[in-house]
């Protein structure tokens, strides 16, 4: 699984040791980036030496694992999923009626903002695109630098953001040039001059850094950062809310990780026990409390800033599983760079990528 340092700390100190004690076993953990997992599993399975028994994988990188036959069928164990787990979160692990992945940690982006800065200029946290643009303009005007952050560094973060914007505008991201896509790119092109230049370096983790150091006043990110910012960095003036709506609706991509068992693993039984443990109330409570991870369970009382997470989850959408996600990712990013950053014409450029996407779909 891929976690940040502070997340690993909690996992290794508080989650894993009690399980090891109870089951008399030893769990070794490994940090691996979501994009690297398929390659690693492939390497292990072609060497006939599966050293992993369980992995957590980002829910948008699943199709590849299924396509290459790297994961065990878990349909038999579907009945073991606790009934308190939200039903809609199970669907993401199902491919053609087969359950390959178990839910354990959903995620949804919320908006972080700097209360002091918004109060200073008499602004309210934006609830729609127009207000977002207006706020961005005012910051830029008053402080000469953009203070609203977009994730423009490329790959996953940028695509997730675009996906959310396009669906909020009523579009289908995979079409590239339906009205929703066009509306989104036109809006972003308009917004771009007023956003922070840090946007070019903004990914999941760096974004937290920018808002914590007050280099930006508004950004969208997974909730895990608010804990670090409030507690570790002692920044009390950063608050959160669920987010803004697009012209069509409010939509937030549900991200996060699901659990899977690699094909060829020798400890399936124990892995299943561990999955159950991770889904249990006691562990999920720790995730919420210590890590600000949203919970898969409905029976967990959430702390205050989780209001925003709960509201965001209400507007949750899942990304479509496609085996050509890597190509989609690339074209989305390229379209973003060319249209939003370099200011190339919206429609022509989108038509170009729509055609590229069609060719990939045919393959």
């Amino acid at each position: 699984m891929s976690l940040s340092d502070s997340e690993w700390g909690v996992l290794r100190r508080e989650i894993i040791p009690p399980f090891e004690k109870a089951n008399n076993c030893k769990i070794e953990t490994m940090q691996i980036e979501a994009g690297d997992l398929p390659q690693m599993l492939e390497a292990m399975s072609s060497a006939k030496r599966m050293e992993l028994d369980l992995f957590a994988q980002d829910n948008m990188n699943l199709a590849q694992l299924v396509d290459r036959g790297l994961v065990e069928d878990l349909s038999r164990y579907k009945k073991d999923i606790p009934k308190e787990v939200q039903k809609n979160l199970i669907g993401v692990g199902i491919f053609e009626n087969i359950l390959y992945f178990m839910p354990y940690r959903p995620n949804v982006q919320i908006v972080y903002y700097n209360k002091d800065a918004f109060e200073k200029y008499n602004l309210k946290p934006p609830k729609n695109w127009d207000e977002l643009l207006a706020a961005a303009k005012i910051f830029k005007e008053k402080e000469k630098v953009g203070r609203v952050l977009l994730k423009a560094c490329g790959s996953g973060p940028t695509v997730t953001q675009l996906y959310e914007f396009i669906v909020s505008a009523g579009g289908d991201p995979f079409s590239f040039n339906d009205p929703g896509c066009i509306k989104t790119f036109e809006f972003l092109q308009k917004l771009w001059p007023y956003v922070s230049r840090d946007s070019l370096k903004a990914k999941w983790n760096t974004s937290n850094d920018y808002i914590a150091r007050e280099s930006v006043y508004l950004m969208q990110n997974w909730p895990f950062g608010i804990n670090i910012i409030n507690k570790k960095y002692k920044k009390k003036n950063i608050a959160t809310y669920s987010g803004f709506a697009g012209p069509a609706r409010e939509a937030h991509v549900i991200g996060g990780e699901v659990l899977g068992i690699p094909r060829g693993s020798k400890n399936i039984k124990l892995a299943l026990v561990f999955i159950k443990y991770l889904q249990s109330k006691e562990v999920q409570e720790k995730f919420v409390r210590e890590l600000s991870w949203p919970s898969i369970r409905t029976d967990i009382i959430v702390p205050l800033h989780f209001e925003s997470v709960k509201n965001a989850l209400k507007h949750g959408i899942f990304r479509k599983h496609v085996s050509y996600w890597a190509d989609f990712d690339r074209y989305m990013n390229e379209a973003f760079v060319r249209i939003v950053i370099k200011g190339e014409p919206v429609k022509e450029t989108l038509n170009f990528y729509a055609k590229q996407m069609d060719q990939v779909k045919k393959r």
Partner: protein
Amino acid sequence: MQNKWIKLKKDSWKFFFLLPLLLYLAIFTLVPVIRSILMSFEGGNNYAWLFSHFRFRESLVNTILITIFALLFEFLFALAIALFISGGGRRRIIQALILIPLGIPTIVVASNMRYLFDTNGFINTILTRLGVVGIPIDWLGGGALTLFSVVISDMWKVTPLMMLILLAGIERIPKELFEAAAIDGVGFWQRLRYIILPLLKPFITMALIIRGIDTFRIFELPLALAGESFPVLSSFAFFEYRNYNNPHTAAAASTVLFVLILIAIFIYLKLVGLPNEETT
């Protein structure tokens, strides 16, 4: 005939001593290089795709610009230090201190430079305090400022190497020449212009080309400082392979780099000559 045979037998140990190295280099250097060149021609016209792709063109331009500016600044700075050190004084200690960056791993240099060049980094802190700029400068968002940051970072790490090469050259200049010049009352700039630079020329050529080849291959600094927003040939090849799962275009991009380096090596052999018995 028999003598020759005996000699051949007597010398056979040389063959066995060389064999492991040659086998290794063949399997792990020659084969991969040929393999990646072959791969670059498989799976479509990768070169046409590359040269039509804006990110690749950027990475090519960035690589060449970094090389030009890094060589220029590093050379001037290194020459100044080398002249200074050869001037005498407590040079041993100073030289020891100046060489320290050579030991710092490049990824660590990149990490350290982020403390300086970040939007809220120390350079912006100093500039804001001095009142030079009102708005923090965005060093690492791509473009000319990032080029500058990468060049400065590269300079920090390898200027000492350039300095060592030039220093070795300066120390070979006969002392008598300087003494004669001193008697004739020749000033520093004239000495530099008419004695030092002409005699240093082979060393300068060598330093520039060897460093040029290294700079073509630059990877860690642009990767860790600016990632995909400031691609160079090496990092572009890496992203193609790792992020986009496309070994063929990755192979093509690295083959372009290979050709650039071949040209540089060719120029080197032309200007400096084969590694001769003395320098080997």
